């Protein structure tokens, strides 16, 4: 049995700020919350929070050096215990996503490292990680081809779809789908799925998630413009 954290049932049930099924939970961002890094952000989606930091483009370890482009490194740090294979997998998925998003060819022989610390997992943790990393990259002013936004959809047994599910929704759902979109054409970059679902359910989830991704991009825009315009 793995070590587990304890969450009170009323906290799980309260689902702070969560209403009907097709609602994106309230989001907060804090850009530059840490001081030692090139870019840092603490992002919360409802009660799910994560902190992402970015270093780079910086010195690269010689065995990871690529002569034509920057190396993208992702480190995911779980809150409890040491990183396990599932976290390594998540790291890899996030890395593959950001390798497409970051304009790596602008900085050959350098490293861009993203470190994500899970601070509270109350559902839709993967999309929170992706979104916080993207904001951290924006905060570090790393050149990117496009921004990315992730949205998680849970499919319940009865066929109902829950957008941005909480921990309880995720455990009750028959499948959980996370879609990652780019900001230019809102095309799908990555899909992480768990459980069984039909083609129609996949597409319905996609349509819903794409609509939600628009408001996530709008949130990025607001956060960045607030920081850049008002700090002048």
């Amino acid at each position, binding site marked *: *049995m793995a*070590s*587990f*954290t*304890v*969450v*009170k*049932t*009323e*906290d799980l049930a309260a689902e*702070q*700020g*969560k*209403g*009907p099924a*097709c*609602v*994106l*939970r*309230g*989001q*907060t*961002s*804090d850009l*530059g919350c*840490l001081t*030692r*890094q090139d870019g840092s952000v603490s992002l919360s989606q*409802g*009660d799910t*929070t994560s*902190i992402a930091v970015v*270093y780079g483009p*910086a010195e690269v370890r010689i065995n990871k050096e690529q002569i034509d482009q920057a190396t993208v490194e992702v*480190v995911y*740090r779980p*809150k*409890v*215990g*040491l990183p396990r294979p599932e976290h390594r997998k998540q790291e890899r998925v996030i890395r593959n996503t950001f390798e497409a998003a970051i304009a790596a060819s602008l900085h050959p022989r350098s490293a861009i490292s993203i*470190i994500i*610390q899970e601070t*509270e997992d109350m559902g839709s943790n993967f999309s929170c990680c992706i979104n916080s990393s993207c904001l951290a990259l924006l905060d570090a002013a790393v050149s990117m081809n496009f921004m990315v936004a992730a949205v998680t959809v849970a499919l319940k047994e009865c066929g109902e779809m829950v*957008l941005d599910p909480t921990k309880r929704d995720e455990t009750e759902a028959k499948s959980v789908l996370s879609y990652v979109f780019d900001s230019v054409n809102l095309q*799908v970059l990555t899909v992480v799925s768990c459980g069984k679902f*039909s*083609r*129609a359910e996949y*597409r319905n989830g*996609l*349509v*819903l998630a*794409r*609509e*939600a991704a628009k*408001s996530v991009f709008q*949130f990025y825009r*607001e956060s960045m413009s*607030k920081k850049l315009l008002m*700090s002048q």
Partner: protein
Amino acid sequence: MRETPLSNCEREFILNFIAQQKRLDGRKAYDYRDLRIAFGVSLGCCHVELGKTRVLAQVSCEVGEPKQTRPHDGVLYVNVELSPMACPSFEQGRQSEEGIELSRLMERCLKESRCLDLESLCIVSGEKAWHLRVDIHVLNHEGNILDCASIAAISALAHFRRPDVSVHGEEITIHTLEERNPVPLSLHHMPLLVSFTFFSQGKYMLIDPSSKEEKVMEGKMVVGMNKHRELCTLQVTGQMLLLKEQVLRCSSIALTKVTRITELIHEALENDKQARLKGDKHGFAVLVSGDKVTSNRLPKTEVKVDTLEVSDDMGESQSSEDESGNEPMEEHTEGVPKESAVEILTKGVGMIGEGGASTWLDVPQADTKQLAAKKQKHKVSKMEEDEGSSEEEEKVILK
């Protein structure tokens, strides 16, 4: 990544400044930076900010076998990790000398001070006991990680509740949180670490060093103490000698600091308890106010989608083969299912459904027009079978 070393000129400046009884951030020698303690939604999750230094501690539990040498006791693990998140010079997966020192001191502070009643964690003697695990994550290194980590760890332990257990004969039941309220750990006292740094052969002493002061210090003394004036740990590192009076003075200063911090921890615990009782919002999400320039807040937003298909139909399963042949990106851009069925309305007029490319009319112009029509959300575009002039075609499409 390597740490940027401190230049000689900066080093001298800081030392001269200390000799003038001044500090870079304007504090007095015995002042702590601002301390902020916050708790997460899950129990035993504590986030401490000491100035800009940030530490996150999480307590978790599992049931396992007790140690053979101590069959009546539960087990407490302390894990301190310095990841590259805190500072670029820390490496992932490899413990530095600093990291080992830190985790040893934390272990001594929490385990060897016996602040936690481990016997109460025993379920069945020699067979089952709770294993507690304290994970300490350093998020930002701006000096004095140690004090910050010790505050975070002890607050997290005080905040934690474990599931209740009942034993009937051979049967052990771990009650879910719905059945029974979780039980707090029995914490006898709260040992806290206070570090003192010394400069110029112990002539000057500072409390709560910043990262730059840590770089120029000669030595460090760590005093672990609780508010009952009981010493739990004492450790001296660095190349310097200390007088007996200095050690005594440090311990009396540590007492005042520890009393103040313990009060703060109790206050924070009480605030969190009240917030939970009232059902107010708590957790980390509330910490971000949205008032600052760097922070932003988006209220919950409803997402409306008008067209959702009900289930798969035959048309789709037929088209599945050619879709799988396509590039996956292509499929996703459409969003709506493709229908490539061609319907003949009247003789000589064909109708092409949305999305399907014309394969029976080899006119490149017509293809582009079709795309344009799609953007204007024309559901159906009609085309005359016999090739007319391009003007004629356009008229038909815009109908």
